[in-house]
């Protein structure tokens, strides 16, 4: 099993506050890796270092290295748009652009130079199918994406991310704002997607992590306490703190 993303000795500060403390992790290809831990433990921060979204935060400082297929993504010569094309992201709150469903999905391909209408239409349909939302929106592709329900919007955002043909998909608590049915749809979708993509998801929901992930990393106060096979971690955690968290003693 090859690892797609590796982090070594990763430290991150927001101003004076250290949000990540020497995190080491190897994320394997075509698996779902879940990042769990209480609020403010650094799991979302860690996820955002993987596609350099933290670059947008003023006053952030990063030490250590993150490699994607061997390439140090914080090296000065790296084109950050290339990283974000390879490593897509779906956010906690669905954030479709206020434009049509079609234009939302076509946004990424257009950004990367696809101009032909036929080609775009093909990508849009394929992405919407892959995100399991095609049947719901195929008759209203030119309608505003803001008219969709929350769950549909989130799947649209997944389709939008898939349209640039990424290698890795980062999901930042992507179901936390959704109802149980929409959540189940997105979980099924994630399981489906891991045949072709590497998925890294942050979740607050223990059951979700146990249900869908293959590997699981437990974060606490900026440290990665434990990382390994999900089943093992949930049945026989090796660290006392992991056990306390999983069994609900704090959180």
């Amino acid at each position: 099993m090859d690892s797609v993303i590796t982090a070594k000795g990763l430290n991150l500060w927001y101003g004076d506050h250290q949000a990540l403390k020497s995190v080491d992790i190897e994320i394997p290809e075509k698996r779902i890796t879940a990042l769990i831990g209480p609020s403010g433990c650094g799991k979302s921060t860690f996820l955002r270092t993987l596609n350099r979204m933290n670059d947008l935060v003023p006053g952030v400082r990063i030490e250590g290295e993150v490699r994607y297929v061997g390439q140090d993504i914080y090296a000065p010569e790296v084109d950050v748009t290339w990283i974000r094309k390879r490593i897509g992201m779906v956010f906690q709150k669905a954030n479709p652009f206020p434009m049509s469903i079609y234009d939302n999905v076509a946004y990424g391909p257009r950004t990367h130079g696809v101009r032909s209408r036929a080609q775009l239409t093909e990508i849009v349909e394929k992405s919407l199918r892959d995100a399991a939302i095609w049947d719901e929106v195929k008759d209203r592709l030119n309608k505003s994406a803001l008219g969709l329900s929350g769950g549909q919007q989130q799947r649209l955002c997944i389709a939008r991310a898939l349209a640039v043909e990424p290698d890795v998909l980062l999901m930042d608590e992507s179901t936390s704002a959704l109802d149980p049915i929409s959540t189940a749809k997105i979980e099924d979708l994630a399981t489906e997607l891991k045949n072709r993509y590497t998925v890294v998801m942050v979740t607050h929901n223990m059951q979700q992590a146990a249900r869908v992930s293959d590997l699981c990393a437990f974060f606490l106060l900026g440290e990665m306490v434990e990382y390994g096979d999900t089943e093992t971690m949930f049945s026989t955690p090796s660290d006392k703190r992991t056990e306390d968290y999983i069994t609900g003693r704090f959180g």
Partner: protein
Amino acid sequence: MEGLSKKRRAWNRTMKALMYISAALTCALLLGLIGYIFIRGVPSLTWPLVSGVTSYLKNTIGILPNILNTLYIIAVAMVIVLPLGVGAAVYLTEYASNRRVAGAIEFAAETLTGIPSIIFGLVGMLFFCQIMGTKEGVLAGGLTLVIMILPTVMRTTQESLKTVPQAYREGAMALGAGKWRTVRTVVLPNAVDGIVTGCILAVGRIVGESAALLFTAGFGVELNSFKTALHSSSATLTVALYIYAAERGETDVAFAIAVILMIIAFLINLAANGAGRRLKNGRGAN
């Protein structure tokens, strides 16, 4: 009523009456002023006045040149201020990484908006007419107004940019869009209502400005083409109002101009409100 003593109830009534009087006075003052201007101005607002020119030989008074000069100045000022103000605002809100420099510029802009406009006129006269050698006219006047309204356009654009949800920017960035593409395709289209509203209000300030134009655009009342007007003394409507009221003693003409200015002000406010609302609705769910 239980609880409130007699004294307090009397105090309550007195205060209520005082507020009522303040409101009534304000209302009466405003309505009285508008009414007075209309009563004095509307009778002299005739077609020959609006469509004619002033001539000593023919003994006619017409304000067509001034209406045109006003339009010329709006055109010159807006063509320059729009790209400049929006560009500066985009830089400060989207690009500038040094928050302290950006803050200093914002503070300077804020201060500039509070400066009396005659000072812009003075500086405009010195800088454009004397140092740069531009002749008194629509160009010098327009450029002076650019400096005057630039901070306003910049600030309203910035406020509008700040209302665009950060999630849109993140969404675009996460798809590999560069800074400029994010700004052009996601940020600006969602800020356009605020920018348009800011521009309409800027036009309102141009139409209403007189002090800054006295020394820069001049007092000329001849009918000029746009090209000639750029470099020849050209009075706008507000300056013409001053000329006819203070120098020629034509109070009726001045009031007629006042009516026109008030109608324009009313239309501009209406347009600003309408544009903001329409553009906002236009991009909602449909």
